[in-house]
């Protein structure tokens, strides 16, 4: 079929590309910190543009291709909604938001908008939310979020380990803060659709993170017996192994969302879909990033403090070994271990050069002699 000689892409496809994640973590840390600070600052200073579902009030929507915001404002003069917030959403929909209630007032705006757009009253959509309802919804959402965090933490701690639970929560909180910050910076309106999208983001991000962690656990279970690698190195190997999955998953998740954004909103004018899609797109990008960079680095940092790994790191340092760039060596060992496990099957079909290939290039120094079994406390 096709020749896979696409340079980097090709080598990623074949799993040969080794990315030095620990080095990238340092940059990612700066980037993430900056993003979180900007988000929190923006949220604190400018706040978020909350939709009526959270604050109460009434919102009208009418398809009006030829109508400008100024014309809409003129038409609403004398209906009690003159100081309303009027905007064009999607391609051709006029949305009016005002803090008025009561059937009569709502109806008069509705009629005015219908007349303006040249449609019947039934073509104007209206949403009215009582003020106490909004705070009730918000409180419920907050409780749900807290319960969710608690349950997920317990679940991950039970199925994997508690340090990973911490890492996963840090990553998810990071995602939500950055996504909300994005909405605050650009002053996009936060609607229930947005909230659902944020929840989705949490789901994606968590799924991604768990896949990464599970791989780490698998690799650590296989490789750590040699006692020659730091946790960070094993983490690096795991991340390289799941990299293709993360990229593929992000692409396949993004395709429907992007088509939702382009087809759904720019062409046909379905506003809610557009709102979903924007938040989802932001979230998928942030979620994939945080699984590889935030969730992984948090756990690696915590694990390196464990006595066993401190000892390994110390040993490598004493030997003058460099703790970075050893991924290929780990990979070679991992492959060799896999080999041993599968030793019973015939290897005749394979040329014998396959294992050294993975090790070639990085194992510049000879494989160091086995460290003395000198316990050093």
């Amino acid at each position: 079929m096709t020749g896979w000689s696409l340079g980097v892409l090709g080598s990623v496809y074949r799993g040969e590309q080794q990315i030095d994640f620990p080095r990238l973590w340092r940059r990612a840390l700066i980037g993430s910190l900056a993003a979180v600070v900007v988000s929190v600052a923006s949220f604190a200073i400018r706040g978020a543009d909350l939709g009526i579902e959270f604050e109460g009030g009434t919102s009208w929507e009418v398809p009006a291709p030829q109508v400008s915001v100024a014309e809409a404002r003129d038409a609403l003069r004398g209906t009690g909604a003159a100081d309303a917030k009027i905007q064009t959403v999607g391609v051709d929909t006029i949305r009016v938001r005002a803090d008025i209630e009561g059937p009569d007032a709502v109806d008069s705006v509705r009629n005015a908008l219908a007349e303006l757009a040249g449609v019947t009253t039934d073509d104007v959509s209206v949403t009215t939310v009582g003020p106490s309802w909004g705070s009730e919804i918000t409180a419920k959402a907050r409780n749900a979020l807290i319960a969710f965090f608690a349950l997920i933490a317990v679940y991950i701690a039970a199925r994997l380990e508690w340090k990973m639970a911490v890492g996963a929560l840090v990553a998810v909180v990071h995602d939500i803060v950055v996504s909300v910050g994005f909405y605050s910076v650009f002053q996009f309106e936060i609607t229930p659709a947005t909230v659902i999208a944020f929840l989705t983001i949490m789901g994606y991000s968590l799924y991604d993170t768990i896949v990464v962690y599970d791989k780490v656990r698998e690799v650590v279970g296989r490789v750590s017996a040699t006692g020659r690698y730091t946790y960070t190195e094993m983490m690096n190997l795991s991340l390289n192994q799941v990299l293709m999955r993360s990229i593929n998953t992000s692409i396949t998740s993004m395709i429907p969302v992007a088509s939702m954004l382009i087809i759904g909103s720019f062409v046909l004018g379905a506003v809610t879909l557009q709102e979903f899609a924007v938040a989802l797109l932001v979230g998928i990008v942030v979620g994939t990033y945080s699984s590889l960079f935030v969730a992984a680095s948090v756990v690696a940092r915590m694990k390196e403090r464990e006595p066993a790994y401190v000892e390994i790191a110390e040993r490598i340092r004493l030997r003058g070994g460099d703790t970075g760039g050893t991924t290929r060596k780990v990979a070679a060992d991992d492959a060799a271990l896999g080999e041993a496990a599968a030793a019973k099957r015939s290897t005749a079909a394979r040329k014998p050069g396959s294992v050294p290939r993975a090790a070639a290039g990085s194992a510049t120094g000879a494989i160091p002699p086995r460290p003395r079994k000198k316990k050093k406390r």
Partner: protein
Amino acid sequence: MRRKIAYVTGIVAVAVAGVVYTLAAGNEPLLGLDLQGGASVVLEPTRTAEPEELDIAVEIIRNRVDGLGVAEPDISTQGSNILVQLPGVDQQQRALDLVGQTAELRFRPVLSVVSEDALASADADEAILELFALTEGGVAADADVVLPQYDDDRNIVLRYQLGPTAVAGDGLEGAVAQFHSFIGWHVAPTFKPGAEGIDLFNNVSRDCHSRVPSCPSGQVAIEMDNEVVSAPTVQADSAFFEPFERSSITISGGFTEQEARDVALVLDYGALPVELEAQESRIVSASLGTDALSAGVLAGLIGLGLVSAYLLIYYRLLGLVAIASLGLSGAMLWTIIAWLGESQGLALTLAGVTGLIVAVGVSVDSNVVYFEHLKEDVRSGRTLRSAVDRAFPVAFSTIVKADFASLIAAAVLYFLTVGQVRGFALYLGLATILDLVATYFFMGPLIGLMSRSSGLYAHPGRFGIPASLARSGAQQPGAAS
């Protein structure tokens, strides 16, 4: 081997049976308001209501909605709230006003009346102002109260000082709207016979006829939801009081035809046992709804098409399995959604559709997790066949862990939130479970079977596994397979 064949054929049979059943039974997904247009309102009791009271309220609202002629109303309780959904209804605002109306009807003797103009004038003294201070909050049925009468523009015109209730709405048997050339549109109630209904009304009318102290004005006020609709005078022109017939009373309050019909409708089915307040009302125009639906469907199809193309190019035959697996869980999902819509009245909303789109992502992810495991094992020197056997349990354990996190999220959201988020959670959870089923019973076994086919075994490239990896360490750019 045999078990794998049994799994694959079994699950395909289940999916096909589901689709056949859905088509045969004519089940179709019930579309939510945001996908077909209509009106919905969340009603919250103004005080803590007993579950029985809510059930009665739901029943009464259902009767009123039926009276309006709405095709498929969905009226249900959610926690302490009542959720009313009226798909595709005309005159949506009117419908929403009508379902939430308490419709508490009372007949009371009038003690005294004052016009708003008189109260506003300068010579009204403190005592009068105090006497005619409107009763706020709970209007007691069996105490003296002061209630307003409004004009068409909702301005107060008169204030009535009223005695205890003589007859309430439960003394009525029914009501109809009528037109009379002299008084215009009015409501004609029919009282229950005897001491439960008409006798009570005649008692108070007799008192007013003779202008006793409990009814010095001679007027009987008709009170609806804490305001006076009208207060006709019992004429004292004859010496003897003539008792009213059960259906000879009319309520005229300057009604338009629609108002008269609405009042008759709510009186017909009685008052709600508890006052309800609209917390969230939505009116979605039919055109907006259908636009959203077609946009969502189109976006979904194009998205699915592109994802399929990507999977095919990247994973070749494995991609084909992934697409088949998606199709399988899609078919089962369709069966369940259609069944839920038909038998449970559970509608698919835009938020639910989003949950499904998310689930497509999760489902594809499950496949990708397995495929990448496979490639990893082949890379480290295994044959395809042994990699397939080893990788599936490992990958499935990862998939279960990750899917379980999605399920926890869905459950928490479903039980702890309200409204749109719930719909999202329901369909996300449903699709996640089906993903597990499809992965375990279909995708895994099918790939296991395929890896045993000798043609595929010899051509790992068809599995999207670079030939160079599977067969030798030498770089073979352009290795043909």
